[in-house]
């Protein structure tokens, strides 16, 4: 980055003035001229802002699925730490903790995956509908 003295700029004739940008600003302006703008990607005409907005929507959806799952898993972990009796509790001669950490947790994660994929596909459909 080149340091620029404001007084020096004022002394120069208008034709010799150079606008010095912070590299972030320069990059941002270059990004606006992305190849996607006004062009075609995978059959769609779109621009960078639309693409990033769509990406953020998918990201929000993924995080809205992921974070509650992680929260439940850590709640379960803390429960196993603080609840001494859980390890020896039985249901029909089957250890309850084995049931919880086995079929209950794993099939719940499978259910969450199915639900997420359906919502993600709906989001894709909506995006395509908006561009008809």
């Amino acid at each position, binding site marked *: *980055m080149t340091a620029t003295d404001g007084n020096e700029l004022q002394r120069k004739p208008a034709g010799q003035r150079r606008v010095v940008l*912070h*590299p*972030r600003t320069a*990059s941002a302006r*270059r*990004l606006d001229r*992305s*190849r*996607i*703008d006004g062009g075609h*990607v*995978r*059959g*769609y005409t*779109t*621009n*960078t802002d639309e*693409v*990033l907005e*769509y*990406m953020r929507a*998918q*990201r929000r959806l*993924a995080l809205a*699925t*992921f974070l509650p*799952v*992680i929260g439940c*898993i850590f709640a379960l*972990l803390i429960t*196993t*730490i603080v609840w001494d009796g*859980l*390890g*020896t509790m039985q249901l029909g*001669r089957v*250890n309850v*903790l*084995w049931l919880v*950490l*086995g*079929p209950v*947790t*794993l*099939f719940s*994660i*499978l259910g*969450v*995956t*199915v639900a*997420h*994929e359906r919502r*993600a*596909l709906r989001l*894709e459909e909506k*995006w*395509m509908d908006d561009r008809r």
Partner: protein
Amino acid sequence: MIPTIAVLSVVAMTLALGTLGLRFARTTSNFFVASRSVHPVWNAFAVSGEAMSAASYLGIPALILVFGVDLLWALVGWTIGFLMLSLFMAAPVRRFGSYTIPEFVEGRLEAPKLRPVVALMVILASWFFLLAQLKGAGVVVRELIGTPYWVGVVAVGLMVAVNLSSGGMRGITFVQGFQFFFIFLGILVPFVVVSVLWFQGDQDAIVTTDFPAFVESTTVTYDRGVTFDLPNSSTVDAVGAIDGRAVDGSLRLSAGRHVVGAETIITWPAGTAVPFADGVQRLNGDDWAAPLGEKDLSGGHPLYFTIASLIANAFGIMGMPHIVVRFYTNPTGREARRTSLWFMAMIVPYYVMLPLLGAFARVAGPDLFGTGAVDGATLTVGRLFDGISGELITAVVSAGAAAAFLSTSSGLLIAMAGAVSHDILSAGVPQFRRAVWAGALVSIGTGLLVESININSLIGWSSSIAASSICPLLVLGIWWPGFTRKGALATVVVGGGLSTLASVITMFGFVSGGWAVAILGTPALWTVPLAFATGIGVSMRDTDVVLDIGHKFALMHLPERRDGAVIEPERP
């Protein structure tokens, strides 16, 4: 005899289908991504074949046999990893259109110099994982046929190399799909049969809550020299060497430690409490069934182990090259999503049934505590049944084990060969074939040296490396436009470098116990957050942003056209 025939059948089928693949595999696209034409359901079979590895099939029951319920967290971690793979990666990595992970990183960040660095991480993570598969092969072949350990390692290494150099990804997809059925049957059949016993009310014959003991008079061959701790004195018949003296006949062993020479055979009377080899912890039934406690996980820190293995397994799956590259073989990103769904529906029942084999082994294979060969726990379930039915169950389980290490070894070797030939040498099919053979020979050589290393230790190191280097690169690269080249390099150097260093220090035994073993043996707990934080921090301070970010994100995220026209993105 029947189990041996079953294993040989799986091997013959693998070679036959692999050779068939030669007829279809001609182009670079065939070899690396099966021409991106694999149906999502068949691809889910193949992904399942890869994911149901010797690490899970043999390793998890082995650890459950010794440590009990805590190892269920490892399965929870893997399942979360597959969920995250579905949420964050399946569709975008396919849509971007690369052949390999390093190529993706180069294309996304426009960083050709970063490509060989990422390739190195791919090779390291795959190599540790492949060693675990070869170790599994050595154990299974030794248990079934009685050959030395090296026979299984060499045979499987060579077989996988022959198959891959013939048919590449296209051929191996076909093979892995079939292998999935063997693996799944290997778990399903004993589960169903033992469940019948359970509901008939014969629970005591299946699981025990006492210290394990020999149910009947049992002859045990100690292939390797071992030191064990005998809880009670016992009169045994022995041939070989015990406590440095040659023995041949009946003798009384006092309670306490004894050193048994290699190839010694001891016949234990019924009711004897089983001895425990050095390194195998002795837990009573309640301690075994309950979580945490005084278990010798991560140097006596079971809570650290639980959290660290959750993180390593979940984030490691997202960075495992042999799993991620399978999604490149789908025709579209939408099909990649369908593959991930089908795959989850296949792997979850497998993970639900798998731990039971470890629980059954406490009754079926108590001799493993004394020999220290707990990696063979899965294969003992057939001993719960007499005669031909026991043999048949052992045959099904053994065939599943063979399919597990063959299938996963293929995927790992293809990831390694792809990284060498495509990302480091920038070459085509002939170099891919050479890279397959080079990778196989190096892995066989090193596989012979890891006989004494636990399968799950090798998997833990591999997962930590993948979770701390490849995973953050992919997640940040796919979902954060601000991720830069310097950020990516810092991620690999800090995350990948530290996790590799910690793994090597542990592998060569430079740490012996306590917190050092915990922190360095399962480093993912601190290397994964550090890698993500480094990548984000360096990128935020970096002024050199990646150009044309809109185009790259469009390639990764925009859905395919509804009219079915598949428009391949330009190759990055």
